[in-house]
């Protein structure tokens, strides 16, 4: 696959919560090894849109999506496609750090692989080390791998969750406001980490922090009330947006 072939494409995505039309006709392509930020005022549907990219939106009763999400030449919104297999390729990190309860740091990282049936101990150990290293957490926890994951600090927990997501070897990592529950130092670490993740993964991140979007992303999409107002390179969106609404939002005059 060449650098310029999109790894993920959405065509005319519409999402409803019962009667409420949350996302309206959104089409965006995502290039491999890029970071795309989705920004917009609260309630604009950015999380909803992100969650439909690995069909985790189905967890909300009454939610349904139409349109196409093309991954690997396949429309993953097709009811015949098994969401379980999709999610192995498109992982997700959530807003609140959520290590699994009563599981050690070690188990938290490998639980995905373990429950997928990988039993080889040496392989699991190796995965734990590489994933914790990729999540920039290894040095901090390598001596306390048997402690419960919940004993770590918030920022460490979130990096543990990132390591856990990476362990099942996804191609795309979705992040739903991954730093909104963290302090600035932990946020900084995660932002730094994302620049490294970009080398191997495609990252799509929802953030309500515009500066964060500007700092870390290559592309930015701006949503308002379920509409895509503008999508472009972050340097264009943040220095010279084409739409008045975008201009107003990023200058803090609206939203």
């Amino acid at each position: 696959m060449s650098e310029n072939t999109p790894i993920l494409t959405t065509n005319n995505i519409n999402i409803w919560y019962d009667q409420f039309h949350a996302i309206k006709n959104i089409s965006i392509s995502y290039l491999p090894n890029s970071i795309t930020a989705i920004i917009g005022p609260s309630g604009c549907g950015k999380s909803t849109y992100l969650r439909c990219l690995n069909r985790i939106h189905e967890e909300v009763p009454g939610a349904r999506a139409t349109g196409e999400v093309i991954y690997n030449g396949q429309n993953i919104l097709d009811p015949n496609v098994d969401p379980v297999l999709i999610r192995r390729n498109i992982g997700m990190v959530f807003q609140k750090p959520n290590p699994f309860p009563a599981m050690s740091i070690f188990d938290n990282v490998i639980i995905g692989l373990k429950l997928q049936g990988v039993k080889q101990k040496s392989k699991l150990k190796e995965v734990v080390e590489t994933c914790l290293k990729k999540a920039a957490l290894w040095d901090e926890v390598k001596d306390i791998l048997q402690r419960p994951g919940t004993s770590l600090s918030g920022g460490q927990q979130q990096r543990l969750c990132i390591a856990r997501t990476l362990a099942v070897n996804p191609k795309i990592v979705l992040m739903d406001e991954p730093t909104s529950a963290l302090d600035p130092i932990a946020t900084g670490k995660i932002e730094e980490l994302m620049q490294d993740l970009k080398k191997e993964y495609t990252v799509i991140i929802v953030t309500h922090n515009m500066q964060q979007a500007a700092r870390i992303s290559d592309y930015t999409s701006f949503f308002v009330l379920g509409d895509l107002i503008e999508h472009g390179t972050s340097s264009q969106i943040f220095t010279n947006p084409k739409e008045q609404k975008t201009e107003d939002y990023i200058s803090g005059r609206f939203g």
Partner: protein
Amino acid sequence: MNYYKVQKLKSHLFIACLYCSAAFVLAPLIMVIVFLFYKGASSLNLDFFMNLPKPVGETGGGMKHAIIGTFYMVGLGSLIAVPLGIVCGIFLAEYGKGKIPNCLRMASDLLTGVPSIVIGIFAYTLIVVPLKGFSALAGGVALSLIILPIVIRSTEEILKLIPGHIREAGLALGLPRWKVIYFIIVKGNLPNIFTGVILAISRAAGETAPLLFTAFGNMYLSYSLTGPMASLPVQIYNYAISPFEDWQRQAWAGAFVLIILVLGLNIVSRLIVNRKQLFNKK
């Protein structure tokens, strides 16, 4: 008096009320334990635990058969109710929307509210009548009906406390739902679930009414599932209403043992929770 002083006085008055009500609640519990200790501890000795009752008129003897019977029937009841209750609780917590779960929830709520004597009668008609005789099995079934709704609701409440994003995190790892529920949600909260179970068991251990019509009680040691079986609450009841002074003394001792048993289970369940919290804080 200025405004500030009035406010302060009101505040003190309110706090005093809170302490008073706390004292009113604590007092009966402490009094029950102290009273039982005073009345029962003196008759408590190794004989009480190791011996069977002596014939009427002779002093001495113990309640070994009743203690074992209580454990036996509570164990039997738990064996029936706990696995079923946990599974139902999981069902309610994870798939709790729709007609069937709502019916189940209402049923278990009603079952909690059913007087224990009614449960006794129910077990009587269900098992004692067809089998033509009081039996430990009937006692166990009656106790299981006491345990079941408590286990269901406590399991459901505990699992509902787990935020949805933890389930979603499991699903986002590309795991099927049943694996997420079993390996992540339930396994991660076993200590909490067991706390609920232990509370339910301790509740059942003290029940008299359901056993009156079912296990009935006897004066000898029995391990038979189909024969009548003694239990502490029934034994206490029988001894307490008897005219013999020695039996009344033993009833006090039995009551003391029973309350220690129930209290002990409660404390154990609390310790499990606390230990887990301690563990997590580290």
